[in-house]
């Protein structure tokens, strides 16, 4: 069950969120849920699509770094377009959609088993667990 969830859960969420944001951006731009879907996509998907290939142990570490990487990638990509005098948010978000969708599919194909558990080594002084 753990292996099944590891292989399918995150990619499924990424695909679902990416497609939902894609729908809200290009097909139904007046929908009320567009802000929530698009922001959730931008803050989570691009980074998680790449971060999972690092095969980190803890889910909260993966999520934290995934969100940070998402925000950085969003900002850097938007900056590149701005300084290239091509301020087209729809193109920028299109690239991020592509990254997320390709990343999610690649995860299904390549990340079949959870990473092996690595023991955190320490030489603790008395009293510290």
């Amino acid at each position, binding site marked *: 069950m753990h292996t099944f969830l590891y292989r399918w859960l995150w990619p499924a969420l990424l695909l679902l969120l990416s497609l939902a944001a894609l729908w809200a*951006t290009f097909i139904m*731009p*007046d929908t009320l849920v*567009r*802000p929530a879907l*698009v*922001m959730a996509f*931008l803050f989570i998907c691009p980074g998680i699509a790449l*971060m999972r*290939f*690092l*095969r980190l142990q803890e889910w*909260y*570490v993966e*999520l*934290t*770094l995934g*969100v*940070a*990487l998402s*925000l*950085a*990638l*969003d*900002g*850097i990509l*938007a*900056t590149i377009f*701005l300084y290239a*005098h091509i*301020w087209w*948010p*729809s193109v*920028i*978000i299109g690239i991020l959609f592509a990254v997320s969708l390709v990343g999610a599919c690649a995860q299904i194909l390549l990340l079949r088993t959870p990473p092996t558990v*690595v023991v*955190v*080594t*320490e*030489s*603790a*002084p*008395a*009293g*510290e*667990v």
Partner: protein
Amino acid sequence: MEEISDMSPSAPTLSLEVEEKPSRSMRVLRAIFSPEALSVLLAVGAFALWLYALPSINLNNISDLGLVTALTPLTISALAIIVVSYVIALQRPQLRAPLLLLHLVLLIFMLYGVTAVLEAVPRFSTVYRHAGFTEYIMRTGSVDPNLDAYFSWPGFFILSAFVTQSAGYHTILSYAAWAPFAFNILYLGPLFMTLSSLTRYKRIIWLGLLLFYLTNWIAQDYFSPQGFDFFFYLVIIAMLLKWFKTTAVPMYAAQTQAGAGSWRTRLAHMGDFLTRKQITAVEPATQGRSLNRAVRSILYWATAPDTLVTPAPARQRAALLTILLVMFAFVIYSHPLTPVFVCVSVLALAICGRIYPRWLPIVMVLMMLGWIYFMTRAFLAGHMYMVVGSFGHLFNIVSVNVTNRVSQGSPGHIVIANLRVAMTLTLWGMAVLGAFRRLRVGFHDISPMLLAVAIMPLIVTQDYGGEMLLRIYLFTQPFMVFFAASLFYVKVTRKVPYLTIAALALVCLVLLSGFLFTRYGNERMDYKTAAEFAGVQALYHAAPRGSALVALWSDTPWQYKDYEQYDIYVVGNQIPDAVANADVNAVLTYVRTRYHTHTYLIFTRSQNASAEVAAGISAATLNTLETGLVATGQFKLIYANADAQVYEYMRAS
């Protein structure tokens, strides 16, 4: 239980007692009345109570002591209940992370989302200026460094313009009020990572998180580049502490590795020094002079390895380092000060051999200097004095950062300013005591100590508009709360003494009380009403582009659009004495000499509040000034409501 009994006089027999399984209803009852269930009930119940009490809060009751004077006893009780519930949950023999997380998220919402729920429009006049930067980018698809300093570090505004347009909004004001809640939720992940890299004692980690949110009164987490970039600072430090700590080698081994002292050998070992993952542990001296023994003892302590190391394969570490540099690349052009704090912190860790690779701070500094040199010359050319003018003038810097804040303004504001100093000293005092306690037990907390003090010397470099000390407090806070939490928990125990629990609960309640005063102490001038903003919108509707927009005092929620189209003047920033003395002629001369085809004057509720709270100028003074100016017959009223009046200056032909 097993007992052996005889069936025959000589042979033993076996009988087993089977323990009865509790019935299903009993199991359900146990689950409902379990300590965890009661804890969930307390947290959710406190949140429900807080929600129930919100509609009875009247923002007109806010005094110079801030939002707390408008909060009802029910609201404050709800906060106290959830804090105490958290403290109790922290004492359980086995900590339940989902339970503690539920408490924290609800507490963050109650502490940091309260203004977004209560107030109709975003607070802080600066948010409206940030809305103007973002609107400029959305409208023109470009940045103009000659327009404002922030356009030399436009990363955050470029990102917010992209997100705003993609989400279908026309302005950040549609969602900016939720920034404090959203940013503090963002901080949760890297804070947990950082604290988990400093100790495995879960009680310290979770208490540290609670203390962070109870002492984060700085309020830099509004919709701003510094609040956003603080998240990246936390992530970068968390990554370094988790995966890039050095391990120690004995000194004698390092000496033999160093080899002969030729310059070629030294050059070769410089490369090794920059990249190696190991530090040289100094062995304590047992003989020799006492000074020499003392120095070597300190060095032995300072070079002791961190106890928690998360191993990672080389490829994973390389990827993590790349991601770290990508994040830092965004930081260097998002805010002028945050990359400096990052570089100083990383440099301190690298110099003291706590992290590797040691070339990392060099690369970071080069990246930062590269942006400054190539992309901020327009700003630096005209503002060099602002950047370096206060360097070394510690007395002036302390005056701007501390003395002026605690001595100017209304009596209520002075109380708030002094409470802020007291909160700062309380947290730092707890941290010092906690650090000593850990030292006595034998912990080598070099990394958090370095991070807690490394950026403090920056106070002598720049006053940063009177906010340098505030920023230093914020960036050292994660490590201060680590030591402060250690004051209560040092050795791992299953059962915490009742005295410790009681003391901890009391301290947390005191900090909560302090938080409510210190965080929202300026609320009278910080919060904006819908009527005020309607007045500003009427001003922009009436004023043609190129007009001069004049306010008597600061804190007007303007510049939210067409940033480059209007010239903004604040009389109180130029001739504060004329405003304080209600000198109508001086103000009239000032307005007349703006020399624009169209000049508009706006009065708002928050201008009055700001003048009174921050400068001690009574609202009656500003009202007298307004009445006097109108009486000259040179101002035509074009819009008025309860909280804003807009006049057009009728320039004599």
